[in-house]
């Protein structure tokens, strides 16, 4: 379990960050479609990483299969828009509801597990849900998936819409994490992470907070999945329940520094840019390159960039530790 406490605003003061957010918003107006796509992808993964941040970084429960909510949100939006012709906003609300409900229902039994067992329980949950999606053909189209109705408007305009949609989602997730670092709810979660039995003895109801935290994290993951479905216009089980999404989210979470507020955002942007530049063209080795990156991150940057900063600038670390 990574031990660092969240450092809200400590690493990255609020003002330059508001400036950066404004800059990103402005960039959305001038960048071409290619770069919009890349940044949109980064925002998506940043959101997933923040979702992981809430349940893993704050509460200390390694929800390895977190992508299950992404998939559920994606399918909720897909089924709602394609089969039921509901407008996108309503579909997004449905995604939130489905994700939250799933967390509320699956939380209590799974939270009886800890550590490795919990991690694998969530992995099993994801795989089981994926299998159901692949076999419940009447609802989900089975392995063939669902095609969503294409949006009207130009590719560029739609690209911009999704750019901003994901940007807002990422900022919302980041804001939630920021609030968690400062309010009682987040405090309870961190107490549970540090010492669950001790927290319980102090009057904190672990099951309530664990389930609530997971539900909150599920909401963001489900929205990310829902937006993804609308963005790509297609969902199928092996794509939206893909463990690669969870792992990428985890790597970004690790790189950004577990429990930090803005770390996942920075790391997501960095990772997306690097992966585009370095191996965007390595089609046949994409998987392996990602695997190597993951291994190297765990080996050399277990505390992420903040850990690196700590090692490089001892004075800063002594002040912050």
């Amino acid at each position, binding site marked *: *379990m*990574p031990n660092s406490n969240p450092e809200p605003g400590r690493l990255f003061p609020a003002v330059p960050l508001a400036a950066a957010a404004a800059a990103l918003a402005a960039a959305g107006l001038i960048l071409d479609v290619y770069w919009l796509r890349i940044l949109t992808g980064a925002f998506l993964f940043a959101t997933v990483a923040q979702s992981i941040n809430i349940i*893993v970084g704050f509460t200390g429960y*390694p929800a*390895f299969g977190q992508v299950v909510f992404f998939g559920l949100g994606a399918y909720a939006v897909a089924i709602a828009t394609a089969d039921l012709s509901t407008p996108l906003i309503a579909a997004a609300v449905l995604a939130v509801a489905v994700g939250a409900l799933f967390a509320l229902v699956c939380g209590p*039994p*799974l939270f*009886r*597990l*800890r*550590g*490795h*067992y919990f*991690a*694998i*329980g969530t*992995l*099993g*949950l994801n*795989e*089981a849900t994926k*299998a*159901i999606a*692949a*076999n419940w053909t009447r609802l989900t189209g089975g392995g063939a998936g669902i095609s969503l109705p294409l949006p009207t408007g130009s590719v560029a305009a739609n690209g911009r819409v999704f750019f901003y949609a994901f940007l807002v989602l990422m900022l919302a997730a980041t804001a939630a994490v920021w609030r968690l670092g400062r309010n009682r709810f987040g405090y309870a979660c961190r107490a549970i992470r540090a010492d669950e039995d001790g927290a319980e003895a102090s009057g904190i109801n672990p099951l309530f907070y664990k389930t609530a935290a997971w539900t909150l994290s599920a909401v963001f993951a489900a929205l990310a999945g829902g937006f993804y479905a609308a963005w790509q216009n297609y969902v199928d089980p092996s794509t939206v329940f893909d*463990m*690669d999404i969870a*792992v990428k989210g*985890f*790597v970004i979470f*690790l790189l950004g520094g577990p429990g930090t507020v803005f770390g996942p955002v920075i790391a997501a942007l960095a990772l997306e840019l690097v992966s585009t530049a370095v191996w965007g063209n390595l089609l*046949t*080795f*994409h*998987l*392996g390159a*990602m*695997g*190597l*990156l*993951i*291994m190297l991150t*765990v*080996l050399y940057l*277990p505390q992420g960039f903040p850990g690196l900063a700590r090692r490089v600038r001892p004075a800063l670390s002594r002040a912050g530790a």
Partner: protein
Amino acid sequence: MLIVQALINGLLLGGLYACVAIGFSLIWGVMNLINLAHGSFVLLGAYVTVTLNERFGIDPFLALPVVAGTLFLIGLLLQRYLLNRVIGGSVFSSLIFTFGLNMLVINLLLLAFTADVRGITVPYARVSWHIAGVFVPMTRAAVFAVAVALTAGLALFVNRSRLGAAIKATSFDVDAARLVGIDVDRIYAITFAIGAGLAGAAGALIAAVLAFSPVLGDAYTLKAFVVVVLGGLGSIPGALAAGLVLGVAENFASVLIDPGYRDAVGFALLLIVLVVSRRGFYGKRFYAELKS
């Protein structure tokens, strides 16, 4: 009769599943490391077997010791130089690391062998015994026998040998093991190597009777997982029993419901067991409790 045939087929397959799982279980039980790359090791073993068969005409059963030995060495090197650095970390740092390793190995296998489904048809593949109205293919029976023999062999090794005692001791208490003179780093390296070797052996057996492709790696890791959780961590008889249960359950689901639900059966069993009892069937006290 169909049911009985499904049962027999399931049992034969189950023995193989047990063999896939014991290496995974050993590593998890002793080193508290869930090796998500286990399936890729199994496949690596299968591909080495196929290569030996196609290039040199070596029968998979004869190739098995060579394949197991190769994977043993690979495992030894991997642990000594890479995994060693990751073991002490958090729960999911080792999960993620082995996940990344898995991605790397699978990608390398894809590059070397493509995603085409491969298999070996041994000259005696068609030989089948007809016992009490049920067909028992000889190759599958042989796979079952070897799988069970390997499982029994591991049990003997762990329970009767000095090195086995050291491995068991390390699984209970690492500090105490050091204090009695056990070189824990060396034990970890050997344990991981044995686990990898067993994965390779399982791969050779798979090559003899099943079709496979690099994309199936994860499925095997998860089957290993299900078997270990069902049977209880640290119990070899449990792994055997659970393997048989899984094999039969999968076959029944395939025959009675739909072949697409094979994998889902495993997960359903996994979730049920995890939620009902962490110890599984045979989870022995003091073994299954420690690792969380």
